[in-house]
């Protein structure tokens, strides 16, 4: 290699007389910290999959080490969440009249929306909160929002176990439809990962985002039929507003999960074109969030 370079150099200007950029090109040096193409970036990300998994698991295990009940909180937290909403919307406001099987209906909504909510909130801090790690070690930065989403998925699996017990205890039968839980969760995970990467880039630059995001998420939650059946609203709304409300991806994930777990939810209870819409949302947000995050890959160390 060096022999060929020397032979070539004899016909060109000596190294000492060319500019830095040309000298770098002559010896095949590359710009440090340059951004690879999206496909190469994806491969590098794949090669760090063990890091992503280990990072998420380590965080999950460290989360409750300070509390006496420890890992038990992973089961208690979703239960308490459901209990609070049941108290407010089921008993105080009486929303449950007219909604058949209110407890599983409510818990499914709370847990499924909670997955997206916590993935977004954790994603907002994924880059900003790990600046020291970013400035110390080399790895594709998308590892961080992906790990935070994986951590939320691991927590959701605890919630899902609790949810299945609740559903069965409330008298719903276990049917083959339960198998639909897997594709719904897979699609929601990809959707959440895309969303987490997008907000991670925003949160890395705009430190105010971490303060604003909870309000945005709460607004989204009330528009997603977590506590009440949204059909009461869409029936009287003008056509375009109803279509808009029914195309809400969070609502679609929640409705599909209710359909999967609760035998009392009929097929006709699903919004029109639920499955194609969910797949379109997942592809668009998953790929869009990835590309949006990748574009700023070089900038994350600056803070």
């Amino acid at each position, binding site marked *: 290699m*060096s022999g060929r370079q*020397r032979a070539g*150099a004899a016909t060109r200007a*000596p*190294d*000492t007389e060319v*500019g*830095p*950029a040309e*000298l*770098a090109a002559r*010896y*095949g*040096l*590359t*710009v*440090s*910290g*340059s951004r690879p193409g999206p496909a190469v970036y994806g491969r590098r990300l794949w*090669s*760090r999959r*063990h*890091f992503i998994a*280990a*990072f998420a698991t*380590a965080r999950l295990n*460290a989360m409750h*080490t300070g509390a006496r009940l420890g890992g038990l909180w992973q089961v208690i937290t979703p239960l308490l969440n459901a209990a609070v909403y049941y108290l407010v919307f089921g008993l105080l406001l009486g929303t449950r009249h007219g909604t058949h099987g209110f407890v599983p209906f409510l818990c499914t909504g709370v847990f499924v929306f909670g997955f997206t909510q916590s993935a977004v909130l954790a994603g907002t801090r994924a880059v900003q909160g790990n600046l*020291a*790690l*970013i*400035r*110390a*070690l*080399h*790895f594709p930065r998308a*590892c961080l929002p992906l790990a935070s989403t994986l951590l939320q998925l691991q927590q959701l699996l605890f919630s899902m176990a609790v949810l299945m017990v609740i559903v069965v205890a409330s008298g719903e039968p276990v049917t083959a439809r339960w198998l639909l839980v897997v594709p719904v969760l897979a699609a929601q995970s990809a959707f959440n990962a895309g969303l987490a990467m997008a907000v991670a880039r925003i949160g890395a630059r705009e*430190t105010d985002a971490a303060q604003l995001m909870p309000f945005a998420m709460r607004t989204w939650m009330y528009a997603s039929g977590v506590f009440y059946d949204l059909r009461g609203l869409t029936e009287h709304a003008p056509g375009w507003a109803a279509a808009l409300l029914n195309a809400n991806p969070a609502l679609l994930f929640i409705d599909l999960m209710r359909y999967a777990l609760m035998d009392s939810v009929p097929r006709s209870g699903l919004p029109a074109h639920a499955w194609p819409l969910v797949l379109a949302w997942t592809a668009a947000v998953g790929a869009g969030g990835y590309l949006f995050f990748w574009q700023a890959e*070089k*900038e994350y*160390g*600056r*803070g």
Partner: protein
Amino acid sequence: MAETRVPTVIADGLHIVYRVHGSAAGRGPAPSALGRLLRRRRSPAVREVHAVKGVSFTAYRGEAIGLIGSNGSGKSTLLRAVAGLLPPHEGRVYTDGQPALLGVNAALMNDLTGERNVVLGCLAMGMRPREVRECADDIVDFSGIDERGDFSSLPMRTYSSGMAARLRFAIAAAKTHDVLMIDEALATGDAGFRRRSQERVRELREQAGTVFLVSHSLGTIRETCERTIWLEAGVIRMDGPTDEVAGAYEEFARGR
């Protein structure tokens, strides 16, 4: 023999600016923040630090280059930029492969155990799980944190600063690199660890093309490096043979 020298790192008019949030709080936080928003002014709490101002140099294969300068002269920032960890504001750094930075400040996760940090650090550096399993024990042994009892199974926040620095150095040194940058790492730890780490650095140097060494100990620099760059307030003050540069720096330091 100028033609046979192969460059490994080229810095071309490098400027580095980073933002620091929360450096100053204005009077009467809420009204003043609102006023700034209305007048479209930047918050005084965000300050830009211009740490490196137009640095250019070329490093060649087989060189060991010392980096000296007063505290806050931009040495560590420069190394981070060469490693591609901080984006340049202006100018460029060209490197041969992916440079590695061995620093005592390499942050790990304080709420996790030492063992867990070893595994995560190795995975983040791109090792495969099998390689990690093979070298994890060696890393803990090398750091010597288990000499006074089983510390590797305790969270890192319980470590003394010396122990944490030793573990971090041990993790970073577990991999071999083409361009190697060492930031003050040789100064930490007790005599035994210093000897072990100097040996390890010598090994790494033999495998690496180019070594950069930041240190406040001119003795270490003279021992290891034939060329030295003196950085002061973000600009290169001198770049040449270690004896000359270190002599001039000593004179400068005495004069202050």
